[in-house]
């Protein structure tokens, strides 16, 4: 500890207290580490819980079987197919609309009030709770358009849920493309669409595709809007997109998890494992697609 004194005999004017301050810092660092430790602990507890409860119930018969009132004989095949079909339809809807809206806002839109309104609107939509989208979907797709509580209605509703996120991520990917790329294309005599399609979109493709695939992963796990739409909880035939009832894995989980019997908790956990595996596969796919699309990009 140093003291600064002008003349001997006077009180020290500084008390740096370095040791105490450094110790505070170390305690704080410890608190940060504790926070991470708690998060890791929670994550492990979560996954362990699901695996321990669900793994015994996970067998080929469970994955490929039809549902039954008895948990020992039940299967998730219709729900699994429903989830996969749902993801595909959601992707198919989101792909053109999400990219189209993002391209418009990032490349074509003039800097005026209408554009700002569109952008603010999309940001707001990103924050609307998913269950409210469910209500919208119920009123519009199921009732107004008369489609009924079919897989397609659920997919359209979920597409709306994830569209704002896809648009925002795509706009960011488009904005990250250096201006030099656009100028290079224009200088060759490209029209705006030729420039976008031939130069900007391929350059932004890794970010855009990653965004879409991850949004699809999110859609696979969503249940709230589908509950409102009217997804069935007991479906004994494979879902068809435009007719008949449908179910998806999260709905099955929701149905079974509400029952206190250990058997139902077991199959609920097993279904969760299937969901997590699907999400994991999609994340892996996102990585592969990203690597493939950015093999030429070096900026």
């Amino acid at each position, binding site marked *: 500890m140093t003291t600064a004194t002008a003349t001997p005999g006077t009180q020290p004017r500084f008390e*740096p207290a370095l040791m105490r*301050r*450094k110790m*505070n*810092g170390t305690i704080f*660092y410890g*608190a*940060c580490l*504790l*926070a*991470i430790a708690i*998060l890791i602990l*929670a*994550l492990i*507890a*979560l996954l362990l*819980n*699901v695996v321990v409860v669900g793994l015994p119930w996970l067998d080929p018969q469970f994955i490929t079987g039809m549902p039954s009132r008895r948990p020992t004989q039940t299967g998730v095949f219709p729900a699994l197919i429903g989830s996969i079909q749902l993801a595909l339809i959601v992707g198919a809807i989101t792909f053109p*609309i*999400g990219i*189209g*809206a993002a*391209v*418009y806002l990032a490349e*074509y*839109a003039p800097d005026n009030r209408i554009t700002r*309104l*569109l952008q*603010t609107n*999309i940001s*707001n*939509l990103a*924050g*609307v*709770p*998913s*269950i*409210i*989208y469910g*209500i*919208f979907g119920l*009123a*519009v797709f199921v009732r107004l358009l008369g489609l009924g509580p079919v897989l397609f209605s659920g997919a359209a509703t979920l597409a709306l849920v994830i*569209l*704002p996120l896809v648009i925002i991520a795509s706009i960011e990917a488009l904005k990250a493309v250096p201006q030099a790329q656009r100028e290079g294309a224009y200088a060759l005599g490209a029209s705006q669409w030729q420039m976008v399609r031939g130069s900007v979109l391929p350059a932004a493709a890794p970010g855009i595709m990653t965004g879409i695939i991850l949004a699809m992963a*999110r859609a696979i*796990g969503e*249940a709230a809007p589908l*509950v*409102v739409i*009217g997804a069935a909880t007991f479906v004994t035939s494979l879902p068809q997109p435009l007719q008949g009832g449908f179910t998806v894995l999260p709905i099955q*989980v*929701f149905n079974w*998890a*509400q029952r206190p019997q250990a058997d139902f908790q077991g199959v*609920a*956990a097993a279904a*969760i494992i299937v969901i*997590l595996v699907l*999400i994991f596969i999609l994340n892996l796919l996102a990585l592969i697609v990203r690597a493939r699309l950015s093999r030429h990009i070096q900026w």
Partner: protein
Amino acid sequence: MAAQQIQLTRRRPWSERIIELLLFAAAALGILTTIGIVVILVVQTLQFFQIVNPIDFLTGTVWSASIQPYKFGVLALVSGTLLVAIIAMLIGTPLGLLSAILLSEYSSNRVRNVVKPVLETIAGIPTIVLGFFAINFLSPEILQPLFGVGLFSALAGGIVVGILVTPLIASISEDAMRAVPRGLREGAYAMGATKFEVVRKVVLPAAVSGVMASIILAMSRAVGETMAVVLAVGTFPQFSFNPLESVQTMTAFIVQIVQGETSQGSVQFLSLFAVAMVLFVMTFALNIVSAWFVRRYRTAY
């Protein structure tokens, strides 16, 4: 020599115009959706208010939609939602902020390689899994022995929703902290401040707008969360701020009505829209405030 005039005049081909129009339509779809949501909610809520007095609805503290005598005091549901959300914030804010500080100020490769994947994994877990965790493990094995609560409690829901929103707070706060210019930090270090002091007195105050934005956004997320709370919190609406009790959130009530056998035009069904309207207004307001904070920190530097 005959000068070959190059053709310079060429009207913009109609294909370009159509493409731009299509792209604009995609962007404008959002406006349609927003208008649609508002119209649906407003129309049905007004119909609900033909039957139930809006004042009673907005100020009543007893909610009994399925059991006679019917009472529609939305504050019971709002209190449930807020109770869960506040508990979630009490958990998520410190966890998220400390993680963000770790990522932004103590960033080494080892730290990043652990913290980022953990946060991203949590962010990717479907909310129904969190709900399952709450009633399958958290409540029976931990909360019940510790606090003597029943299987359903606001605390259980609050804890899992807190875990849910932590990555959100962490990522936006980290963003805000990174935006603080190095010069500010270095000035403080140069005066002999310890790392902790720099964080506490320079970085956090400078990033306060972003941190506020993240907290408010997380609050909005917690208010709108459905699946985790439906499973964890229960279906017993009461105007209570006791976290150990079972309550019901607005979102859980919507699910309950939709799953039940209530007929289309009944007052119970209409109450669904009124509750959704309140939910929408709350989250919308929170989002607007959060966006205002984001603008403040994005333009501050």
